Structure formats: structure tokens, C-alpha cells
């Protein structure tokens, strides 16, 4: 394997500078992965601190003002710095060109610039922590965000910059998918991962500019009192909510669509079976991307928007459940008559199917107008979006990292510890967040520093669950890093998969393929082609 290592993108050229100025999508993907996982660590530690504070009503380890900064940063970091860029910018950057047989993304310089924009955005956000933090919640609702004394401007500037990073990644992917597919890679021979990333890219490109202009307005409102959102000057705070959710609801699909895309790959590979309903899955991604733009008002049923608007938004909201349901059923049908392996990525896939189903179904409670009135702004909402975002997107991300790890770094991790971690994460996650559904329906409002004593037991249980979850992640970090140094060398195609990235060496050479790839079969033709996975 010495020869493979010598020519891999990881080893040549050498030196820090060759990484910081690289135009190679794989290196940029790895740099994203490092940056994003660092942010995930920060956000995760904040989450554990929050859960620790909530062990008892009143003060445990921090005061109310610190607590408010903690949950705001947890939300802002996890959403803007972790989940939104995670799968597209880190994993997508790495695998998308490989999967379509391209040498790179269409605009490598723009790709590197996106990474630097990400880093700048992150620095601005961290700067806001140093200058006293921010206590508005990640949604920056006006007029609170206009009047609070905390450093709103630096973090919103950070998010504004991150938005451009996200736009440029999306733009790059759209052009890459349209123009750089290998000969024979027709649209319906693309892996579903590519379809998912493509649908995501469309949402990134169409929704993010609106967030950008909203944040500019918010910053100007704070700096110069321009009177658009400030009620004291004739502005309207509910207008801010409309603007904010016009981006941030589609952003939910920026987070979950790539997760669904990964699951489509994993279900097929680890069932060793042709994906069921390829076109249904592909088009449901586009359907979700489109419908995602029409439902933002369902975040505002109790905000004071007109009843008619609420009824229309509720109606449209239910339609977005259908394409998500179609995906779940197609994945289940893929399992049918497969040859299913229980490697770590498959364990995450099964977690995803279970948790995302709960996440989706609880969305129906929140879409139903009268029930939402009771549940809005309670822990039910918190639990719901953690089931979708963490139970969905993060489980898929973890599955994807374990799946492509051998391809990215050319090393295998410990399967035993990977399974232990996957099970701990599943158990810890459910302990933490299922409890929150019950608290929510019983009326526990979110973003509460203290709470009525009747909730003490459940808060305690939820906190203990979060420690189990944290332990699972800690184990994953240890064996993954260990594998980089001590792990056995990975073969080119350890899982016996048929998509193009597994046809090249692990890790791939700088130009991805030593030959010009020509697509001769579909990405999931397990009914026609025999490939034996690694033992």
C-alpha cells in the first residue's frame, strides 16, 4: 500500500501552507470537517453546561444571564457553524466530485474562499463570546435584539459572512452537478447523495440572501435606529419574524436534505440492494426543497400574524410531510430482501430511521393549529427539532463520517468501539430528548433558566441522558483519532459499494482518479454486479 499512500491527496504536497492554500476539494472538505467538528465540540460542551444547570430549579452552576448566553450560543453555533455547513461543506465537498467522476468542483478558488469565509464568520461569532456574549436566542428576535446590551452586532455579522460561505458552496455544487459529470453519468445515474446535495444547494442559493439582507437590516436597526423592525419608530417586530423564517425554515431543509441523501447511500450499500424508488427519492428531495419555501409562517401561529395566514401556512405545512414519508417508505422497501450488515454506519442509519420518524410525526402536532397553540415555545418544540436535527441530520452525518472515513483517510476505525458509541449515542439521545416531549406537552416553556419543581425529575433524567450522549461522542472522538495513527490500512472499497468514489484508491489521488472514469452501470446495481465487501 506504500504506493497508494505516496500519491494520495493527503500526503502530497506537504506542509501547512500546501493545506491552507489548497484548491483540492478533498483537502478543503477535510479542513471543513476539522473546523466544523471543533464547533460541534464547543456547541456540545455548551449543551452539557446547559443540561447541568437544569439539574435543579434555580442556580446550579451559573446565573440567569450566563445561562441565556449559553443557550443562545449553543443554538447559534450548532445551527450556523455546525449543522448547516456540516454535511454539504465537509462531506459533500469531499465526495460530490468523486461521486460524479469529476476532478474537482467547478470553482476551486471560490471553494477555498468559502472555507475562509466560514473561518471569518466563526471568528466573529467567537469575538462576540469574548465581548460578553449574546443573550437573544439564536433567532435574534426584535425588539429584544435591538435593546439588549449584549454583542448582537458581532455575531450577526458573523452569521452574515457565514451566509455567503453557504451561498458560494451551494453555487459551486449546482454548477459542478450541471457541468462536470463524467461521461455516461446521466441525471438518473447520479447517486442520490448528489441529488440531495443538489436540492440542498438550490435552497442555500435561494434562501440565504434573504437572511443576509435581514441581518443587515437588524444591524442597521441597532446601529442607526432605521425604524424597520423597531416598534418605537413605527417598525414592526413581526415583520422581522417573517423575514427571519423565510430563510430559517428553508434552512431546516439545508440541514436535513443532505442527511437524507447520506441515508439513501447507506441504506443501499449496507443492505447490498438496489435502492428502492430511486426517482421517488430524487424527486421528493426537489419537492421538499420547493415546498420548504412556502411554510415559514408555521413558526408564527401564536405571533399575532393573521388567522388566514396561519390557516394557509398550516395547510401547506402538511404537504411537506408527504415527500418525507415517501423517503422513509422507500428506504424500508430497500431493506426488504436485502443482505443487511450491521456495521456502524448501518446502526446510525437505523437510528436515523427511528428518530427521524419520531421527529417528522411530532411535526404534525406542531403543524395542527389548535395543538400548536398549546405546544408552541415549550420543550415539545425543543424535543421536536432535536429529533429532526440531531436524530436526523447528526445521525446521518455520523453515519456518513463512518462510511467515508476509510476513503477520506485511508484507515479503518475500530468497529467494536464504533458500535458501542453508536448505541450509547442512541440511548443517550432518547433519554435526553424524549423526556422533553413529555415536559413540553405538560406545559414547560423553553428557554427557562429555572422551572417549577414538578419538572425536576424529568429535567434530571434528561440531563443524565445528555451525559450518556456526551460519553458516546467522547468514545467516537477517541477511536476515530486513534484510527488515524494506528488504524489498519483501508482497502479501496471496504463496503462493496458501487458508486464511483469507491472505484479509486483510499485515500484518492489529488486528481481523484488515475484514469478518466466512464460510467457503465448505475450507482445501485446490486442486482447485476457482484462486489464483495471487506470481511
Amino acid at each position, binding site marked *: 500500500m506504500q504506493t497508494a499512500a505516496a500519491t494520495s491527496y493527503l500526503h502530497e504536497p506537504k506542509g501547512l501552507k500546501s493545506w491552507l492554500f489548497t484548491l483540492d476539494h478533498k483537502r478543503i472538505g477535510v479542513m471543513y470537517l476539522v473546523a466544523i467538528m471543533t464547533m460541534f465540540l464547543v456547541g456540545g460542551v455548551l449543551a452539557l453546561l446547559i443540561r447541568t444547570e437544569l439539574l435543579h430549579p434555580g442556580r446550579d452552576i451559573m446565573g440567569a444571564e450566563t445561562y441565556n448566553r449559553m443557550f443562545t450560543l449553543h443554538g447559534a453555533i450548532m445551527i450556523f457553524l455546525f449543522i448547516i455547513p456540516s454535511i454539504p461543506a465537509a462531506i459533500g465537498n469531499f465526495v460530490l466530485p468523486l461521486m460524479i467522476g469529476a476532478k474537482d468542483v467547478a470553482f476551486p478558488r471560490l471553494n477555498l474562499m468559502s472555507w475562509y469565509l466560514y473561518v471569518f464568520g466563526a471568528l466573529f461569532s467567537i469575538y462576540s463570546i469574548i465581548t460578553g456574549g449574546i443573550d437573544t436566542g439564536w433567532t435574534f428576535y426584535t425588539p429584544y435584539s435591538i435593546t439588549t446590551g449584549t454583542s448582537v452586532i458581532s455575531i450577526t455579522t458573523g452569521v452574515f459572512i457565514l451566509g455567503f460561505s453557504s451561498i458560494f458552496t451551494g453555487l459551486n455544487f449546482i454548477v459542478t452537478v450541471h457541468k462536470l459529470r463524467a461521461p455516461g453519468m446521466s441525471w438518473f445515474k447520479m447517486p442520490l447523495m448528489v441529488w440531495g446535495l443538489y436540492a440542498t444547494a438550490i435552497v442555500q442559493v435561494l434562501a440565504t440572501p434573504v437572511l443576509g439582507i435581514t441581518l443587515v437590516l437588524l444591524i442597521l436597526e441597532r446601529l442607526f435606529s432605521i425604524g424597520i423592525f423597531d416598534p418605537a419608530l413605527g417598525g*414592526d417586530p413581526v415583520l422581522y419574524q417573517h423575514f427571519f423564517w423565510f430563510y430559517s425554515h428553508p434552512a431546516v431543509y439545508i440541514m436535513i436534505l443532505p442527511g437524507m441523501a447520506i441515508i439513501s447511500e447507506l441504506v443501499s450499500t449496507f443492505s447490498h440492494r*438496489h435502492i428502492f*424508488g430511486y426517482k421517488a427519492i430524487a424527486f421528493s428531495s426537489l419537492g421538499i426543497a420547493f415546498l420548504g419555501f412556502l411554510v415559514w409562517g408555521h413558526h408564527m401561529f401564536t*405571533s399575532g400574524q393573521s388567522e388566514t395566514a396561519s390557516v394557509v401556512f398550516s395547510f401547506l405545512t402538511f404537504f411537506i410531510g408527504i415527500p418525507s414519508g415517501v423517503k422513509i417508505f422507500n428506504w*424500508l422497501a430497500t431493506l426488504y430482501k436485502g443482505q443487511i450488515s450491521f456495521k456502524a454506519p448501518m446502526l446510525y442509519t437505523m437510528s436515523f430511521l427511528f428518530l427521524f420518524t419520531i421527529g417528522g410525526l411530532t411535526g*404534525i402536532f406542531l403543524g395542527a393549529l389548535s*395543538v400548536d*397553540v398549546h405546544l408552541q*415555545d415549550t420543550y415539545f418544540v425543543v424535543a421536536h427539532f432535536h429529533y429532526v436535527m440531531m436524530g436526523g441530520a447528526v445521525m446521518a452525518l455520523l453515519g456518513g463520517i463512518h462510511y467515508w472515513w476509510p476513503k477520506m483517510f485511508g484507515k479503518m476505525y475500530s468497529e467494536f468501539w464504533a458500535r458501542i458509541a453508536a448505541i450509547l449515542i442512541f440511548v443517550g439521545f432518547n433519554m435526553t430528548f424524549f423526556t422533553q416531549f413529555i415536559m413540553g406537552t405538560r406545559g414547560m416553556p423553553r428557554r427557562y433558566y429555572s422551572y417549577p419543581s414538578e419538572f425536576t425529575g424529568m429535567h434530571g433524567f434528561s440531563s443524565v441522558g445528555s451525559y450518556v450522549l456526551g460519553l458516546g461522542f467522547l468514545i467516537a472522538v477517541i477511536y476515530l483519532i486513534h484510527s488515524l495513527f494506528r488504524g489498519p490500512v483501508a482497502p479501496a472499497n471496504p463496503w462493496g459499494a458501487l458508486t464511483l468514489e469507491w472505484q479509486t484508491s483510499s485515500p484518492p489521488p489529488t486528481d481523484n482518479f488515475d484514469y478518466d472514469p466512464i460510467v457503465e452501470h448505475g450507482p445501485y446495481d446490486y442486482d447485476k454486479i457482484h462486489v464483495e465487501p471487506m470481511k
Partner: protein
Amino acid sequence: MDTTSTFWLPGQYSTIASDVDGLFYFIYWCSVFLLALVTAAMTLFVIRYRRRGKVSLTSGFTHNTSMEIVWSVIPTIPIVVVFMWGSKTFIRMHAMPGNAVEVKVTAQKWFWSFDYPDGASSVNELVVPVNKSVKLTMSSQDVIHSFFVPQFRVKQDVLPNRYTQLWFQATARGTYNLYCAEFCGKGHSEMLGKVRVVSDSEFVKWADEQNKPPEGMSLEDFGAQLYKTKACVTCHSVDGTAGTGPSFKNVFGHEVLLADGRRVMADENYVRESILDPRAKVVNGFQPVMPTYQGVIKDRQIDAIIAYLKTLAK
């Protein structure tokens, strides 16, 4: 906890609660069914079709249009029921009743105040008659708050630039928790109130008694009571520990250092001004976050608070 609450939901104490809960359980059982179906299918398949040894070519059954149609259309049916049911109740929640007891609700950081038709007012305790429609017209003095009573299944954001409305009809006497459900800063989780549902005659009697100290109560004790009912307790301790505002212990008759460097004597006029125009003299080390109590508190009540402060000072 009251005994009528279930595992999932608190007890039903308003006329719309049972309707909301009906839909809740409809979605709940549909969801349980679907989740069981998905989990059972997944479990069955992964066990039945687990990999044994080497792999081989697998089934070429890769798509089926009728199946796609079936699993797209069938879930649509309960979905439409949920939409219609939810909207119907929602519209009922927003149709304001004609002959209701009207209460003006003012939210500010971090307490609720209520103004009743006959001039009575209360802080953090909404008193309403049982089995009568109550219509709340709400506005905020600062940021967005949200009026939430879980046992009534009602919630409505309270905005600074316009009035929002909400109505409910309580079905049983008792005391119910009132929460602020929209994040509003440091005291968000302390912005708790009660809704006390009383009989018609008790309501009338209560409204009468609002503006004067109860029979036989000393001015100091009345002040101590106001300290709690007017929500001073949220920010000001009486044991010397600093909260959002300075403690009330040993304030009256002592010299106070202000944020602008001045020193003033905490006398009757200082206390009065601090209640009615709290930002005129801000104590050093504290933020000017206290709202004015102008209109919320009566002169006689200020007298009582001053009397109470005197008891706290050595």
C-alpha cells in the same frame, strides 16, 4: 399537580381544552401506529434479511409506482382530517365572544399587570370568574412576551407595537400557572403568574378590595404583601443579596451610591421616585432595567411599601 392531569397533558380547565386534546390524541394514536409500523418493518427486515457470510446478487425489485402512490395518498387522508380539525378549533380560539369580562393585560420585564373594567388592578395574579368568557387585550411595554396558561391550552404573543387578543372560559375554580413563553431576557423564567378562577360573587368582592389594605392589616404588613403581589420580589431580595436590583435590606434611611457617582439619602421621596420613575436614580452596580410602576400602583400602596422598607432597615 392536580389529579385530572394525564401522562401527556395537564388537566383540562377551559372550554376549548377538551377539543384541543381530542386532536392531540388523534394525532398521537396515528403517530404511534405509524411509528410502530416503521419500527416493526425495519426490525423484521434487518433480522430476516441479515447478511450471512458472503454477499450475492440481490433482488431486482427496484420500484413500483402503485406502491409509491399508495404510501403517498393514504397518509394524506388523516393529514387532511388533522388540518381541518386544527383549523376549526383555531378559528374558534380567535373568534372573540361578545359578552366577556374584559381585562387589559400589560406585559413588561418581568411581570404581568392586569387592569379590570371597574378600576381594580393586580400584578402577576389574574383573577377571573368561573364559567364566564374572559377576553384579554394585551400589549407589551418593552419586548415580545407570550401569555401561556397550559391548563387552558391558550397562548398568545404579547407585542410592543399593537394589541393582541385572547379569550378563554375557565370551567373550574382554582389556581393555574401563567407562564411567559417568549424569551424576554434575564427574568424570563421568573415571569410567572397565576390565574385564580373564583366564583362570581368572590370576583366582585375581590375587585372591591383591591385598592385598600385588607381589614385589620397594618400598613407594614400590607407593604410586605405588596412586595410579593406587585412582583418586587422578582428582583429585590430582603436578605441583602443582590438580584437584578439592589436588596431592600438596610436601604431606607441609608445613603445610596448612584451609578453616576452621586450619593443620595434613601428617604420617602427617593423611594417614591424609584417606584414611579426608576431610571431617574440608578444604584451603582445595577442596570437601569426596572420598568415604571406609574399607573400600576396607588399612592396608598406606595405608603405601605415605604412602611415596609422601614421595617427592613436597621
